[in-house]
């Protein structure tokens, strides 16, 4: 068990790939089919392109507030890739890579950030919850989903995402504690990206690691190099198998870095040193994984360049469609609050329509 070999109290962090994409310890290398290795890489690359372009669109005044993901692609894609189609993804709000791998259409993801709730109505077979903005409150949903799965005798597990700041919330404790008590099949994936807007990780907790919090709940916890997609995958796969076998929840702390701002409304130059950012840029998770794939003979710089350009076009065309989507129809504002509109809502809707007619 990786969770036995890497003790978070001793700050032992699981790392499988070095910066040059070489395997540090052959015994730790997870088995992943070549097709899936490429799917993981391409999803990371698409997330990167979509992220860069979303930020540009926002700067051009074409996109509303957006929460960038650059730097965290391995933590996101590596973890979700270790789950199955039938498992549940319970996001916070900065998991673009995970959403794409899970099958959420990019068009919908952009539609959400463009200000349209339809962006959160994912296709029926995509078992993923909408973005959850109140920090850490989504974790209890994941625990509940997992408890239901267990009661029904199904094998589906849930994976929930939260940040380093989220671990300070009471609901982090409550959700993990519930999951542990009921042995619920859920994985709590902490993306420790070092900063909760302007507040550094050191102000969130006195604990040396976030993974060690698992010890207090009586469950396994492991710290992994969150910029090493193979380490994230290996730790998550083990946790998923454990959950599916009825052995309960796991906390995984993926140590990573938010290279961009918290959201497009944030200016990180106010609170963090440029040199820190430069150091983390050297640990780019995509570069590292690309070298691994090239070393393995599965990928090349030429293919990479071509793929990148393809994605640029795809993202551009997708966003164009989103920009053409127009405004939300009046009826949509009313009709989803209850399964059936209440008399009050019917009256408000009819009255507004009567006043403004077609303009409404």
């Amino acid at each position, binding site marked *: 068990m990786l969770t036995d070999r890497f003790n978070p109290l001793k700050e032992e962090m699981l790392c499988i790939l070095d910066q040059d994409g070489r395997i540090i310890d052959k015994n730790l290398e997870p088995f992943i089919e070549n097709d899936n290795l490429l799917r993981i890489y391409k999803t990371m690359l698409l997330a990167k392109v979509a992220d860069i372009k979303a930020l540009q669109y926002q700067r051009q005044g074409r996109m509303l507030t957006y929460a960038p993901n650059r730097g965290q692609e391995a933590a996101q894609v590596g973890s979700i890739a270790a789950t199955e189609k039938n498992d549940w993804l319970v996001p916070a709000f900065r998991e673009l890579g995970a959403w794409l791998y899970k099958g959420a259409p990019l068009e919908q993801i952009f539609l959400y950030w463009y200000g349209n709730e339809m962006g959160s*109505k994912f296709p029926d077979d995509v078992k993923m919850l909408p973005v*959850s903005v109140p920090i850490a*409150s989504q974790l209890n949903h*994941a625990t*509940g989903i*997992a408890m*239901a*799965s267990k009661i029904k005798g199904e094998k589906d597990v849930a994976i929930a995402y939260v940040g380093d700041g989220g671990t300070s919330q009471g*609901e982090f404790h409550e959700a993990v504690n*519930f999951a542990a008590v009921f042995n619920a099949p859920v994985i709590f994936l902490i993306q420790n990206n070092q900063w909760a807007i302007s507040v550094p990780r050191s102000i969130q907790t006195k604990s040396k690691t976030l993974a060690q919090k698992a010890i207090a709940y009586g469950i396994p916890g492991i710290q992994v190099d969150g910029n090493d997609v193979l380490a994230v995958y290996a730790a998550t796969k083990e946790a998923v198998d454990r959950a599916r076998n009825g052995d309960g929840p796991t906390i995984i702390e993926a140590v990573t870095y938010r290279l961009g701002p918290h959201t497009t409304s944030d200016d990180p130059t106010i609170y963090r040193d440029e040199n820190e950012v430069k150091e983390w840029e050297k640990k780019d998770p995509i570069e590292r994984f690309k070298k691994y794939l090239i070393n393995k003979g599965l990928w090349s710089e030429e293919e990479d360049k071509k793929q990148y350009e393809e994605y640029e076009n795809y993202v551009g065309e997708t966003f164009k469609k989103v920009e053409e989507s127009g405004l939300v129809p009046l009826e949509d504002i009313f009709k989803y609050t209850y399964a059936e509109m209440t008399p009050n809502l019917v009256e408000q809707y009819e009255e507004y329509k009567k006043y403004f007619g077609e303009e409404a």
Partner: protein
Amino acid sequence: MALLNIIGAVTHALDSEMERDKTVVVYGEDVGYEGGVFRATVGLQKKYGVDRCFDTPLSEAAIVGTAIGMAINGMKPVVEIQFDGFVLPALNQIIAHAARMRNRSRGKYNLPMVIRMPYGGGIRALEHHSESPEAIFAHIPGLKVVIPSTPYDTKGLLLAAIRDPDPVIFLEPKRIYRAFKQEVPEEDYTVPIGKAKIVKSGEDITVVAWGALIREVQKAIEEVEKEGISVELIDLRTISPIDRETIIESVKKTGRFLVVHEAVKSFGPGAELISIVNEKAFLYLEAPPTRLAGFDVTVPLPRGEHHFIIEPRQIAKKIKEVVEF
């Protein structure tokens, strides 16, 4: 038919629905082994097992938060918050998520879940055990708020709440949990959410109340009837969505309106009811629509609670005031 009090009707409704629908699960603090501090869930764990009726760690936010997850994943959770005043840590889950998940996901995720809790004062309890928070919930789009006042309605409304596709806050008037018994049919029936009940027809004034106060109003009516005042009493039963039609029709007939509630007065449910009366029946009014409600204070501890509790003689006085305006 069985002769049941309100708490017995809660147990009977949960039992019959757990029997009928395997996706119904019941949980909360002390709910499983003990059967709840008021014994509302007594016997359910024994009958349906620990998977379907269980005790949880002491965490209201997680009780409600996990119920949301359960509902998303195909269950119908009926969770208990032990007392009205303890629901506050769960408000983030109730307001930010339970009420909004359907709208947020544009209808992909309905949340068929019920949050039960005893509410209201008059039981000589500690702080946080005597509150009437119905207006807090009724103010939130996406929630339904239901309050029964009889054993018959308790069963019918609770079954309707469990089968409702939207989240329902089910407030149980703890003061009258064991106050009286009523014939409750064994067979399946529901009382529709969103429909008030005319408890008693009358001509001179419409009085709207709910929960434990229905009985208090009935006592007041006995008094004022001796003086020849004819009262129409409406049990609101659902605070949200509100049954405006029944109230408006009644006020058009009587021309006078009084709402009585234990929840504090300012920004309370009475304000909403009076607005409805003013908007829809203004020209029929012969006196200002009036409210008799809890003072704008924290519910006093038992040595002072008698000042706060609304008694029949106060209600009778208020009825006369409105009629004689």
